[in-house]
């Protein structure tokens, strides 16, 4: 499909950019403007989804120049699902932020959030590895600025560490781009997929880009920056970071491994699998040891990200789909957990798990949201997490690599342990009961909506699986 004049892919990128400019120019109406634009962006993503489901994968040549010279936008099942989960979580978080931020902080939150949304939409649509570098940089800086919005000592320290790690990751990635460009004369992913052969430069590029993206995805040995950053950020920002921003760099890694680095990567895939398994276990154990709720959820993110990397050593179609399914359901569940934690923090003024004072009775909606999200991250039946884990187990058994099955099951048990630890404490009465601030209803309902969406993904699994096959991103990278 060549470049027709008006394209919904472009609208999905330009709308949040224009929204950011407007929110910055008119701070007084920033909140309402942001909300209206959030609905508009979600609407345009839905129209794009409709278009893609009818016409299949779309390639749009920006500026009409075509692949090697210009930049292409490419949307297939994989990027469409990522765009939709960003739109859904983004919309709900926007509604949540209407009530969460006071005027002073709101002025800064909305332009930064809209630029973050622009970066994510641009990243999921781009088919050009240098363009992905610019979107990665935009994403990293926006995320850091949003974390620093919380203003406390630990938030600023975590934001500083996150910024340095993000810049290091981007530079490693850019070095890989330089090597690939000078090996094959193009930076377009599709052309690279055709021209790539295994030379030392490609191995070096693969290693550098993978390490750079692992820094940004916070896989096990490189995860040290994630817990403080995601725990000390404001609640809606933590939800966005854990659910979406961390997944964006995983998406690029997935895209590169599927198309550019597909031949000579069996050994490296095993390494990623081992690191993923270590992340699952380490994240689970650390989450058990945490005393603060947000730190627990942040370490649970580290663990859940580990699951996504178990897909690489299996590398069958079922495994890729399982990984994507886990990614989508984790995004919804994690966002719901962080929003629920934000409600609990607003309510009690603290998030120490031991002193959760009858939260179940006094904040029923938030705790239900947390419990439902917990169900999905544990992988209990009737949840998106269950479908994902089931497919992953199936793929592991089919490929005969049974040890990943053990890791998945132990990970599920650990998740159950730290979730029930929190839910248990929320029924008890804390020794020091303190006055509680009422939590706006809209904040509780938005957490619940996301948790229900995570569960719904378990019930209606056929639709996402069908969308995944558009453009066959996993099957030999045909476009």
């Amino acid at each position, binding site marked *: 499909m060549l470049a027709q004049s008006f394209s919904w892919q472009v609208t999905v990128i330009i709308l949040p950019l224009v929204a950011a400019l407007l929110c910055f120019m008119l701070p007084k109406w920033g909140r309402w403007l942001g909300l209206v634009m959030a609905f508009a962006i979600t609407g345009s993503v839905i129209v794009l989804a409709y278009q893609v489901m009818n016409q299949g994968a779309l390639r749009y040549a920006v500026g009409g120049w075509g692949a090697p010279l210009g930049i292409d936008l490419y949307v297939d099942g994989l990027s469409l699902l990522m765009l939709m989960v960003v739109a859904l979580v983004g919309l709900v978080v926007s509604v949540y932020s209407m009530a969460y931020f006071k005027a002073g902080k709101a002025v800064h939150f909305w332009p930064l959030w809209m630029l973050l949304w622009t970066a994510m939409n641009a990243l999921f649509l781009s088919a050009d590895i240098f363009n992905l570098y610019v979107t990665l940089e935009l994403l990293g800086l926006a995320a850091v600025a949003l974390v620093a919005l919380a203003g406390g000592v630990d938030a600023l320290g975590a934001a*500083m560490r996150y*910024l340095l790690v993000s810049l290091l990751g981007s530079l490693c990635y850019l070095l890989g781009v330089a090597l690939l460009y000078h090996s094959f004369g193009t930076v377009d992913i599709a052309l690279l997929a055709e021209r790539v052969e295994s030379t030392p430069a490609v191995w070096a590029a693969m290693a550098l880009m993978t390490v750079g993206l692992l820094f940004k995805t916070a896989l096990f040995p490189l995860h040290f920056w994630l817990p403080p950053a995601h725990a000390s950020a404001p609640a809606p920002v933590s939800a966005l970071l854990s659910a979406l921003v961390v997944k964006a760099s995983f998406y690029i890694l997935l895209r590169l491994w599927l198309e550019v680095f597909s031949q000579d990567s069996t050994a490296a895939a095993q390494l990623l699998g081992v690191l993923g398994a270590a992340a699952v276990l380490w994240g689970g154990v650390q989450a058990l040891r945490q005393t603060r709720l947000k730190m627990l959820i942040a370490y649970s993110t580290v663990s859940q990200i580990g699951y996504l990397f178990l897909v690489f050593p299996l590398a069958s179609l079922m495994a890729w789909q399982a990984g994507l399914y886990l990614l989508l359901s984790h995004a919804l569940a994690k966002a719901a957990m962080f929003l629920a934690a934000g409600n609990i923090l607003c309510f009690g003024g603290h998030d120490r798990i031991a002193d959760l004072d009858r939260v179940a009775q006094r904040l029923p909606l938030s705790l239900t949201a947390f419990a439902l999200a917990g169900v999905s991250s544990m992988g209990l039946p009737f949840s998106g997490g269950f479908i994902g884990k089931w497919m992953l187990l199936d793929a592991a058994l089919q490929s005969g690599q049974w040890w990943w099955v053990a890791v998945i099951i132990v990970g599920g048990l650990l998740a159950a342990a730290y979730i029930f630890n929190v839910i248990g404490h929320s029924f008890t009465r804390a020794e020091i009961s303190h006055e509680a601030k009422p939590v706006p209803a809209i904040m509780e309902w938005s957490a619940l909506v996301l948790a229900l969406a995570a569960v719904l993904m378990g019930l209606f699994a056929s639709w996402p699986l069908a969308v995944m096959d558009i453009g066959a991103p996993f099957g030999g990278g045909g476009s």
Partner: protein
Amino acid sequence: MSSDLFYALTGASLFTLGLYALIKHAHILRKILAINVMGSGVFLLLVALAAGGQQAFDPVPHAMVITGIVVAISATALALALMLRLREASGLAVLPDTSPEELSEQLPEAPSDVASKNNGKNA
């Protein structure tokens, strides 16, 4: 061994030098300098490989590097502002959990002490 290959190797070594300094030093300003040096290394590599010998003039790496330079200065400016805010909040321009022995290696030579010590000698 054309001179452009030499610049490419210089770029690679600058990248590694910056990476070592980024990990080694505790003071954030020095880490920001390290990130800038690494960026210059990558840009040098990007252009040096394109300039190889008899090839025609390839403008795409040049455009990439200009984009990279602008991205680098915006990242540096944000990092400096964040460092100053962190310093004002925590009293020290170092990442939160820097170990004491790392700190001791930085602090005695804090700029103001060194300048005054020097000045005494010179006056």
